[in-house]
Structure formats: structure tokens, C-alpha cells
């Protein structure tokens, strides 16, 4: 199976201090990491590779520094890595990003399966997987918690209303995975060394992908940013631990949060 994993490098949220009183975010430590959702996408893919063998190609659109995220993907177990980077991508919005990624998938000769995170760890739009699937005319399954391969298909368990549904999708398909369902493995130390010393990341620009100005024109305009209103404080359960736990579970059951 040929699997392309879409990954994104994000600013490490642990280095950001949010001051709601000043409506400002301060960057204490500017460090870029492979986003946790991308790590989950890689993990879901590597489990398929472990189970039945697969060629795993990591793909990312980003600034040149995003090469580090791709090298981390190689260290974790990826077989090849491609960076889509061009100053012309700087203004890309979500639809443009999806088009660029889809063009790269096509240039790679398509895939049996494309895997992405349910959303990214920074902008959290949650649209890339679906948009890429539409652009490629692949089947799509989103918010996947369990993923297994079958001949010519994948079987996926996804969130469905208050519970889960297991579906089958014929290949080629796009799946987006839930971060919490695929805790990432650790990269082997030797693969970390080799990811920088031995292995390559291929970089493609807009021209390589055959994308012209029209294809890169964003639909969205940035008008500024503001803080969301503070979340209301929820109901507090007080009392002795045992009785409080009982009360909490009853309340959660009544609201169908837990079964």
C-alpha cells in the first residue's frame, strides 16, 4: 500500500504565554515542532505499515524550516519526505493549501491512502483532509479512532453522534485521525541521527507542481484577530471524594457524556 501522510509543523504551544487580561500572546520560546495531530497521522500510518507493509511518504507544505518536521517523520519511520515550499504559498489559505497538497499527491502518482490529522495543532480548521479528498476525488473518512487495512479497502472506526461507527472505504481514500486515538511512538535514536545525516527531503515549489497564480489566489482575507469570550465556569461538584465522584458520574451520564 502506498500511503501519503500530510503533516504540519507548528509553533510549540508550550512556548507561548497567553495573557487574556492584555488580549495578547507572548512567544517566550520560538520553537517549531511536528504538530501532535500530524504525529497521530504518522502513527496511524506506521501501524498499517507494521501490520501489512506500506510505503510511507510524508508530505508537508510550509516554510523551509518545515523540513525539520519532515525529517522527524523520517525518523519516526517514514520512507520518503517531500516539502512544498515557495514564497508564493505564504498567503495560502485553507482551500489553497489543500489544492497545493492535492497537486503534490498527483505529482507523486496518487496514493492508495492519504492520512492527515483531524485538525492542525495551531489553526485547528479541520478542513484539509476533506478538501484534499474532494480535490482528488478520493473517498473520505474523518475523525478516525481505529484504522486497519483490508485488500483494496480500509476499515475505520469513527466518531458518530454520541458513539462510534465502523465503516469501510474503498481505496483510494483520505482519512483524518483523532489525535487522542493514536499516541505517537518514540523515534529510534539511530533513525534520528540518520534522518539528518543520511536521508533526503525533496523540495518542490509552485512551478514544480504546475501551479499558477490563479491556483494560489486565496479565497479568505485576514482582517485581524481577537480573543474568544472566556468560557463560563462549569458546575462544580463538591463534597467528600467518594460522594462527589458518584454525583459527577451521575451528572455526566444524564448529559450522555459517558455511557
Amino acid at each position, binding site marked *: 500500500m502506498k500511503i501519503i501522510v500530510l503533516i504540519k509543523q507548528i509553533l510549540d504551544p508550550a512556548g507561548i504565554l497567553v495573557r487574556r487580561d492584555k488580549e495578547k500572546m507572548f512567544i517566550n520560546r520560538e520553537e517549531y515542532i511536528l504538530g501532535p495531530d500530524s504525529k497521530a497521522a504518522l502513527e496511524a500510518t506506521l501501524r498499517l505499515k507494521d501490520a501489512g507493509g506500506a510505503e510511507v511518504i510524508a508530505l508537508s507544505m510550509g516554510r523551509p524550516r518545515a523540513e525539520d518536521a519532515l*525529517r522527524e517523520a523520517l525518523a519516526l519511520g517514514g520512507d520518503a519526505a517531500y516539502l512544498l515550499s515557495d514564497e508564493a504559498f505564504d498567503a495560502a489559505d485553507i482551500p489553497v493549501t489543500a489544492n497545493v497538497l492535492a497537486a503534490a499527491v498527483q505529482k507523486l502518482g496518487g496514493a492508495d491512502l492519504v492520512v492527515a490529522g483531524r485538525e492542525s495543532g495551531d489553526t485547528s480548521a479541520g478542513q484539509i483532509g476533506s478538501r484534499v479528498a474532494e480535490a482528488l476525488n478520493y473517498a473520505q473518512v474523518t475523525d478516525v479512532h481505529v484504522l486497519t487495512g483490508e485488500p483494496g479497502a480500509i476499515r475505520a472506526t469513527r466518531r458518530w453522534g454520541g458513539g462510534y461507527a465502523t465503516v469501510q472505504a474503498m481505496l483510494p481514500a483520505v482519512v483524518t485521525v483523532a489525535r487522542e486515538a493514536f499516541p505517537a511512538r518514540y*523515534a*529510534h*535514536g*539511530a533513525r534520528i*541521527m540518520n534522518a*539528518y545525516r543520511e536521508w533526503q527531503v525533496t523540495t518542490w515549489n509552485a512551478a514544480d507542481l504546475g501551479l499558477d497564480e490563479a491556483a494560489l489566489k486565496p479565497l479568505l482575507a485576514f482582517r485581524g484577530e481577537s480573543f474568544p469570550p472566556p468560557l463560563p465556569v462549569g458546575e462544580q461538584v463538591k463534597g467528600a471524594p467518594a460522594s462527589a465522584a458518584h454525583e459527577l458520574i451521575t451528572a455526566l451520564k444524564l448529559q450522555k457524556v459517558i455511557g
Partner: protein
Amino acid sequence: MDFSFPKEHQLFRRMVREFAENEVKPLAKAVDREHRVPLETVKKAAALGLMGVPFPQKYGGMGGGEMGYCIMMEELGRICTSTATVIGAHTGIAAMSIYLDGTEEQKQKFLTPLASGRLIGAFGLTEAQAGSDAAAIKTTAVRDGNHFVLNGAKVFITNGDIAGIMTVMAVTDPSLGAYGGITAFVVETDTPGFSIGSLENKMGIRGSSTAECVFQDVRVPKENVLGQFGAGFLTFMKSLDIGRASLGAACLGGAQAAMEGCMEWTMAREQFGVPVATKQSVYFMIADMAAEIEALRSLIYRTAWLIDTHQPHIKEAAICKLYGSEVASRCIHKAVQIHGALGYSRDYWVERAYRDARISEIFEGTNEIQRIVLASNLFRPYGLRIPS
């Protein structure tokens, strides 16, 4: 001068930090209480290449060099000194002695299983009458055909009871003394005649084992002579020289953890209506910690760079161990003070850190020995010999 870490080492640090936080930390308190080696952690570490960080990949190592190794030791030292000790004694002195002076064949046969973590290593130097005076060992090795027959006992051997391979220093010619009369051997611990005596009941690093190792007519093939015949003392001293840098790195991690813990606590703990971090008597202590930690960090990684670029490093490595262990002890001493009664409670990490820190001023050459090493290196160019 470029003081930045190579990118592969930056990523490696993130991996080890996650490993330490997620796999090592949950066991740290229990292994200290239960006085047991976290072998399950060793197994997980081996699967990630962490049992052979400094060694080349062709010997089953990770290829991270001394810099990578110091990074791992710092991160492990930040979370659990016991785990750092188990992996450190295995890598930094036991496997290191084979890497430094082993033949190609010995490296294939003994370093590869150690570096890949299939076997654990131990370093057999100390004896009851030979601690700081390492050349005073009494264990003997007598030639018998194609074998040497070892007799004697080693004490305070880290990993002694869990090791598959031990490098051992023994007297081969009592008339020749340290230089010429002592030979190093690689001993497979399943060799008949090798046994474990008592296990130490220690103040700290209780998640590591410290064993008495007894050699009773242990027959070792002559192919297992490590380094030049008669030059075993040098092989062992060279291994210790390098090991001191990474030992200092583990101390750096311990000091860093003490400071981080104090910052977290003093921002949360309120007295007189304000966080105690705003009290000068407290933040001065934390500022002093930060200054020493930063100086130590520069020292450790510069020394790692000296080792990786094959430059003289004996003096610097001795300073890493000497200064590192004392910085760690000072920081943790302050951490107990800052945490007050909580810092004295067995239920809290500070008390364990305080007990764990003390050994670093003692093992792998006491700090007094480090001062001798240092002074010898300072005065030697002037023709003045410092007696041990």
C-alpha cells in the same frame, strides 16, 4: 564559534525528554522505595537505541557521539538519577572501555550486544582495599594455556548482578605495578566461577544495584584481554576520563530539575499573602542555581565537543565531574530549604533527589581524586609531579 546543537541532537533531546517524562518518571519513586532496578525501562531504552548512544551504528550503537550521550544523561538525570546510573555505568564506562581499547573482533562480539542493549555491562575496578588507590587491586589473573584464571572480588560494582558482560581489571604481574602489571579483561558473567556476593543497601540511587562480584577460578580466554597486555590500568583510567563528562551531564540534569521544581513551587506557594518566589531570600537562591547551572551546561557540552573532536579532555572531564556533582548537591540542598518541611518529606521528590545527589561526589573517582587529576594536569607542564 557556534554554540548551537546540531539539529539531530535537538530532535534527539526532545525524544529523550519525552521518554524520560513518560516512561522513567512514573517509576522513579517506586524503584527508590522498592530498591529495585527498573529493568522494564532498560528494555524500552534499548529498543530506542539508548543503551549505546555514543557508539557508531556499525557496532549496534546510535551514532550520537559524546554530545548525544551527554544530552541523554542530562535528560535522565533530570528525572531519575537511578536510571541514569544504570544506563551510565553500562554505557559510559563498561561498554566505553571495550569501544576505546577493544579489537575489531572484541567490538563485534562484546560491544555490539552491549550497545544494542541485549546485554547490560558493568565495570569491575573497585575492590575492598582499592578504591581511590585503584592500582592497589588484589584480583589476580594467571595464565594457563589459552586462558587466564581470575581470582578475587570486586565491590561496589554498579549493575554487577544484572550484567552479562563485565570489564575487569586484574593483576597479571605483581612486580610491575600499575603500569605493566595490571591487565584488563572482558568477562562474560555466565562463566563458571563468577558469582554475586552481597548487594549494597544504599542511601540513594536505590533504583540501581551495587554488587559484590566474586571471581573463583574464572577461566577467561586469552582473546578477552582488553587492550595491551599489562596496560589495563590505562584502559580503565581512559574509560573513567570520558565517563566523567557524562556523569557531570547527569548532575546537570539533577540541578536543572531542582531549579525547575523550586520555580514551580515558589510561584504556587503563598506566604504573607504573596508567592514566596517574590521573596528575595528565595529568588536569590534560585538565581544562584541558574548561574551555576548555566556555567555547568557550557562546561559539559564544550567537553563533549572536545571528546567528539578527539582533543585532549582529561582536565575538562575531571572538572565536569567535580563541578557538576557539587553544583547538583548545592542546588538540591537549596531545593530542600526552599521546599521547607515538604522538602524533608519522604513523600516528595526533593528528599529522594537529595539522597541521590550525594553519590555523584563519590563514585567514579571521588571529588578529591578529581582535584588530584586536575592539579596533576595543571603542574605537569612545569615539571612538578603531584603525588597521589
